[in-house]
């Protein structure tokens, strides 16, 4: 059979150009030699505009996420692995087993193909590790200056096991609040990479797929888990406030029990930020019936992604819906919603 393309993609020095989004041969080659090659699964290899699969009877979950992170590469990950983890996690937060992912790429003219390949390879590795193949996708190219290198939108579908009912409105007074590990790692790792802040740290992003951890938790206590949420943008504070609002309850957490790495604390001190508001990409918050808290904690700590899990507080009855915190100093304050993006302060 004749070769489909006269010469292979120049993945070393080549750049994305408008023809790669044109729908013609150049685009087909990009898809074949980059996306299909790395994502490598039967559904994708069919090369249809859609992926056809049978779903077992049950409740399906679908979730979508746009990823616009800058820088594209950061300590502990890149936009590709982040895109996979982000959507896998959103699906997993319903208690569902993620099945498949789709990925839409908006590429900026001029993006080095070498960078794109790194991102795609990273996505493929993340998808493999999470057990969720990327089965369909789309590629568009925008003119130079109209994109930040690459934007990626991922959508995921998952299947919720029988008897599992996890939703943000199910927290009740008396429930325990758990967190799967240290907070603020991802945000600090990203900020360290931003040129205008210029600080050096060994902190890496915690970007990870949590579906394995969720599966173990659900297996251990299927009825007791009421809420799961991954505290991404806006940090732990936002996740707690969201859950409190959805459920119409209040919360009290204990600052001393919230795990924060010493370096993350230090970086936040330097910038005048509060770790509670800093993004995480590999952590979850779990609200469960009090009786199951210790059991769930033990299960989480057995898992590599839950080694530093902790019980941090409890849900209470509160008409105001405040998330209160006993400070490590011994006083009390509320943990409010964040205002816009957290900005470093001098005062």
């Amino acid at each position, binding site marked *: 059979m004749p070769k489909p393309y006269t010469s292979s993609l120049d993945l070393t020095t080549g750049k994305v150009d408008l023809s790669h989004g044109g729908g013609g041969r150049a685009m087909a080659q990009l898809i074949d030699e980059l996306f299909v090659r790395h994502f490598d699964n039967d559904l994708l290899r069919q090369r249809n505009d859609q992926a056809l699969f049978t779903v077992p009877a049950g409740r399906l979950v679908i979730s979508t996420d746009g990823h616009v992170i800058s820088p594209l590469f950061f300590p502990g990950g890149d936009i590709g692995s982040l895109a996979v983890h982000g959507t896998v996690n959103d699906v997993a937060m319903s208690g569902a087993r993620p099945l498949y992912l789709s990925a839409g790429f908006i590429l900026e003219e001029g993006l080095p193909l070498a960078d794109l390949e790194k991102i795609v390879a990273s996505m493929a590795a993340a998808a493999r590790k999470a057990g969720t193949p990327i089965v369909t996708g789309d590629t568009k190219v925008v003119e130079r200056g109209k994109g930040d290198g690459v934007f990626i939108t991922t959508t995921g579908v998952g299947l919720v096991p029988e008897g599992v009912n996890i939703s943000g409105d199910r927290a009740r007074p008396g429930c325990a609040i758990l967190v799967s590990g240290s907070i603020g790692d991802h945000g600090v790792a990203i900020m360290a990479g931003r040129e205008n802040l*210029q600080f050096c740290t060994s902190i890496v992003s915690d970007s990870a797929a949590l579906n394995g951890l969720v599966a173990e938790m659900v297996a251990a206590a299927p009825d007791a888990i009421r809420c799961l949420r991954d505290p991404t943008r806006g940090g732990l504070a936002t996740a707690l406030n969201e859950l409190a609002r959805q459920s119409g309850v209040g919360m009290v957490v204990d600052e001393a029990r919230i795990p924060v790495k010493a370096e993350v604390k230090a970086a936040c001190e330097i910038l005048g930020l509060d770790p509670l508001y800093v993004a995480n990409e590999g952590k979850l918050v779990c609200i469960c019936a009090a009786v199951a808290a210790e059991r769930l904690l033990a299960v989480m700590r057995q898992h590599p992604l839950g080694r530093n899990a902790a019980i941090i507080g409890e849900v209470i009855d509160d008409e105001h819906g405040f998330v209160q915190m006993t400070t490590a*100093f011994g006083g009390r*304050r*509320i943990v409010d919603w964040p*205002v816009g993006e957290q*900005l470093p302060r*001098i005062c």
Partner: protein
Amino acid sequence: MKYISEFRQQDLARQLAQAIGQTVDPGRHYRLMEFCGGHTHAIFRYGVQDLMPANVEFIHGPGCPVCVLPTGRIDNAIQLAARHDVILCSYADLMRVPATGRDSLLKAKAGGCDIRMIYSTQDALKIARENPSRSVVFFAIGFETTTPPTAVAIKQAQAERLANFSVFCNHVLTPAAMRAILDAPQPVAIDAFLGPSHVSTIIGSQAYEPFADHYAKPIVIAGFEPLDVMQSALMLIRQINEGRHEVENEYSRAVTRQGNLKAQALVQDVFELRPQFEWRGLGLIPDSALKLKADYADFDAEQRFSLPAIQASDVKGCECPAILRGAKKPQDCRLLGTVCTPENPMGSCMVSSEGACAAYWSYGRLRGKCRVTLR
């Protein structure tokens, strides 16, 4: 974190709380003004009030340079940024402060103005070096802590002949503000002051001695950590009980009597007093702010660009002026929580992270709504 964590220890906090409880005269009400916005922030963030007896009240002072900056000056900064040839460099604290017409630096940036958030004046110099064809203006604010870094940048710009660099200067002085509060026609009842931590590292504890003498008020220069705040409160309470009015230095690990002479000399070299300056909430105060000396006129943005003096008025019902003077509390403002929230700030007390309203809203508004019971 060394010199940080040790000053936040809970068991020491409880001991200090006990000591304060035993030192206060149950028949008295103690009104302590924490002058500095950083202290206001710390008090709310750590919940220090919960550890204090009910008859000790913290009154929030105007030591928040963002809060006391008149709206007209933000308007001027936006005007500068709107020029094609200007890159405006600003500390992040100023980005969300409301200007006239609900504008702000952040909104102006979204509208296409070249506004860069910086962390240090060194960053502004770097931007100036990298953009020789543009005018780089540094929006300078701050009390005496933040003024020396601006002085360093101006001297460096002069040495490097960085002709495209200039400073829009809004540096203000602490003693003048304290005087304005104490001399106010209807003075707020204040028994004693917690002096600012880092302003004092620069100006030294001696700068406060005239106040303690003339106004007969105890002053304790307090460190930045919550234990420092409590220890300083204890020292003030003792002074009040004993009828003393001295300057004491609790922050002795960073503050000396003379302060940082090198920094003071640099500031003296570059800046001089403005005859008067408008302070939001306190009105016109003589000898309270700085401008660049004639020798450095080339780097003075107000001379390089014509900036009209803009008289902006406060939003009706906004109590920032009274709150900044310590005459009212955030809870006394009708706008708080109704129209004025951090997402939609009506005045700078809400938008600055050190502003009393922002601190109260973000950390403390459970007070009066929920019973605060400590375990």
